[in-house]
């Protein structure tokens, strides 16, 4: 293609993106079409990928097409396998796409669609994609080493230890939050609970089918499982309409929390092949299918966004969670913009599959762009709802009241009109008894998704089926994260305890399996219980804690990345990783300060504890929980401050010439794939 034509095409993409962004940002008081968000996102991603990621690949990382990757050098047909770049892209995307990019934007929509959308776009292009890309490449150049190993090698022993503790902490908090989202989605919902309960026998059946009837035919088995799940959703309607059966599947939040804790323990301690592996496949199958379907639904329907550009809650008085737009929008949306957890995947399975260094750009940077687009779709799903409906679903009873009329009056007084009759009709249309106080983001996302699906595929008659399909999708998705995370946490604790007493490190020794499973489940189970008992819905305290932990892990990853960039002699380009690092430090430290010390009891843990203590019926347990959350937040911040200081000392030593810059890369070996076209 002639150069001038290429320039004109990219100019057109940039202008279109700018126009879409201007439309999003400047249309005050008017509703806009959701396609503006999609166009802005696609153009921003295209420009970011074409120019910024190319600059990083060429100037900062100097990707070497002639250098053999560990997949080639250490090929063993098992972990290390040179794989087609598109296949690695899909594999990596399936691993990084979790419930976070769906739930975070839905919660952040309380500020209006603008802050979250801008953060998703800028955060991904300048932060999340950069982090995933550089960590992936650095791991590729170090034989597929993990983030904690790279932190220890490149920063120091303290860096490695802090990274390890940060990973364990984030896993515990993440699992608690995930479990809370499921509890809030399923409580008092016989239909939803029945559908999710049915996924257990369906997975067992899949396990037997896969093991005995059609060995290795996972795709076929997953398709079969999917058909059975759809039948379970259809059957759930009958369950919900048959009172004698419905009572078997109608549980309070506390009862569901206990069931999930038992499930988590069993998932960690029992062999995986029969139940968990098939569930994992089923979840992935549903996940990929649903995300594609949602994208098609949005394009087919091109819905209007009813949520305003900015709401009055940018001041921090929001009912979904308390805290002003800065810094709380930036920790609420993690996975769609920048997520530290991705650094674990980028330094886990993926670097062992990359066939050529040059492909790290498409996999690392590109897959995160796709994840960011999922977050934009979630934002659209939340914002197509009438704001009154959105706030009625997402506001806890502690803020708007328990009674439908009182809640509707409060929300209407905020300027978002809604009536109890409208909410009742909506609940009826999705087959639920009520949609008030369904905090956690999942029900609001499900209503938005059902709205998009039913208006583009099947009409209003299918609204209830689509709603429960969305709830099933989210719950299945989250429970898979829960059981996989519990097992990963268990292995990490076993690895650590193995240094203290060898038998504790043996992953096949049952006393150790039971003890370490109990330890990790007790960790997240405690926070889950705290969230379920919280009169403010739990999300108000736990989601920010999760966001802080996740972004602090990203801070650790960016510290590692900046240290390596400086040691590579590329200090002039260090801003590429140091920019997002400084932003995250500002965001997470500010958010942590507010969460611990803010005088507003809805924001600050300590002031909330003080308010409870001064009240007429002081609840010692709630006061203890607030103080525990404050201690956990402080501990996370202190750990990250330590790794920041250690990294900064290393940078100064290298830049002042007091230390010889030496990166610990594996030696250069020429690739046999050099002849292939890049």
């Amino acid at each position, binding site marked *: 293609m002639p150069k001038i034509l290429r320039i004109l095409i990219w100019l057109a993409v940039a202008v279109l993106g700018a126009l879409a962004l201007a439309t999003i940002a400047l249309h005050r008081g008017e509703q806009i079409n959701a396609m503006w968000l999609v166009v802005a996102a696609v153009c921003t991603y295209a420009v970011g990928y074409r120019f910024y990621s190319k600059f990083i690949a060429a100037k900062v990382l100097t990707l070497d097409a002639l250098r053999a990757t560990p997949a080639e050098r250490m090929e063993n*047909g*098992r*972990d290390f*396998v040179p*794989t*087609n770049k*598109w*296949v*690695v*892209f*899909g*594999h990596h995307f*399936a*691993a*990084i*796409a*979790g*419930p*976070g990019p769906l739930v975070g934007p839905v919660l952040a929509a309380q500020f209006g669609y603008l802050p979250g959308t801008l953060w998703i776009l800028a955060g991904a292009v300048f932060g999340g994609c950069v982090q995933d890309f550089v960590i992936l490449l650095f791991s590729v150049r170090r034989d597929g080493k993990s983030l904690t190993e790279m932190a220890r090698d490149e920063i120091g022993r303290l860096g490695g230890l802090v990274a390890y503790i940060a990973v364990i902490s984030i*896993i515990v908090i*993440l699992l608690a939050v*995930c479990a809370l989202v499921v509890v809030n989605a399923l409580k008092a919902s016989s239909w939803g609970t029945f559908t999710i309960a049915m996924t257990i026998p369906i997975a067992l059946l899949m396990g037997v089918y*896969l*093991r*005995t009837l059609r*060995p*290795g*035919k*996972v*795709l076929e088995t*997953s398709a079969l499982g999917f058909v059975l799940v759809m039948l379970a959703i259809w059957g759930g309607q009958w369950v919900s309409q048959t009172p004698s059966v419905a009572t078997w599947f109608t549980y309070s939040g506390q009862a569901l929390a206990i069931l999930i804790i038992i499930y988590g323990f069993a998932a960690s301690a029992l*062999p*995986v*092949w029969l139940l968990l*592996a098939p569930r994992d*496949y089923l979840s*992935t*199958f549903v996940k*990929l299918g649903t995300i594609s379907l949602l994208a098609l639904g949005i394009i087919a329907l091109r819905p209007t966004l009813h949520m305003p550009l900015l709401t009055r809650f940018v001041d921090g008085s929001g009912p979904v969670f308390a805290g002003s737009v800065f810094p709380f929008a930036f920790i609420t949306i*993690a*996975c769609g913009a920048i*997520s530290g*957890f*991705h650094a*674990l*995947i980028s330094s*886990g*399975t993926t670097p062992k599959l990359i066939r050529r260094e040059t492909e790290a750009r498409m996999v690392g940077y590109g897959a995160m762009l796709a994840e960011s687009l999922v977050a934009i779709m979630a934002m659209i799903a939340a914002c197509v709802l009438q704001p009154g409906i959105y706030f009625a679903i997402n506001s806890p009873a502690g803020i708007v009241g328990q009674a439908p009329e009182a809640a509707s009056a409060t929300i209407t007084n905020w300027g978002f009109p809604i009536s109890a009759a409208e909410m009742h009709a909506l609940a009826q249309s999705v087959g639920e008894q009520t949609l008030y106080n369904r905090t956690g983001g999942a029900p609001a996302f499900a209503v938005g998704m059902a709205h998009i699906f039913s208006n583009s595929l099947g009409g209003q008659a299918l609204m209830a089926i689509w709603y429960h399909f969305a709830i099933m999708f989210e719950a299945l998705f989250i429970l*898979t*994260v829960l059981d*996989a*995370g519990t*097992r*990963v946490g268990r*292995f990490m604790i076993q690895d650590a305890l193995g240094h203290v007493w060898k038998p504790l490190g043996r*992953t096949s020794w049952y006393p150790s399996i039971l003890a370490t499973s109990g330890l990790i489940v007790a960790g997240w189970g405690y926070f889950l219980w705290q969230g379920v008992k919280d009169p403010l819905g739990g999300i108000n305290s736990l989601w920010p804690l*999760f966001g802080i932990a*996740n972004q602090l892990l990203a801070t650790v990853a960016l510290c590692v990345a900046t240290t390596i960039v400086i040691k590579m002699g590329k200090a002039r380009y260090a801003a590429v990783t140091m920019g997002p690092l400084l932003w995250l430090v500002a965001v997470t430290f500010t958010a942590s300060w507010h969460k611990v010390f803010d005088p507003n009891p809805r924001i600050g843990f300590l002031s909330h504890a003080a308010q409870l203590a001064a009240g007429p019926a002081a609840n010692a347990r709630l006061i203890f929980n607030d103080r525990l959350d404050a201690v956990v937040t402080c501990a996370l911040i202190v750990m990250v401050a330590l790794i920041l200081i250690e990294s900064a000392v290393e940078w100064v030593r290298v830049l002042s010439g007091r230390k010889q810059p030496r990166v610990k890369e594996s030696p250069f070996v020429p690739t046999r794939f050099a002849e292939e*076209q*890049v």
Partner: protein
Amino acid sequence: MKDSTSHVRIATLVSPVERLRSCAQIFFATLHEIFDESAYARFLEQKQLVSSRAAYAAFRQENEAAKARRPKCC
């Protein structure tokens, strides 16, 4: 150094049907990789086995430990 004319030549030689077929192949290869079917195929090839209950059980046993240690993102 890339030869810009070779791109043009390749682009004109590859028909839309072939491109579509290639896309479909990559799509299914991705699914096979994500759902561990490729890993199972590699296992069979490496161990010189044909697919059977016993072979699949052996594959699962060998891969489960590694799979269980893989974190799933939030």
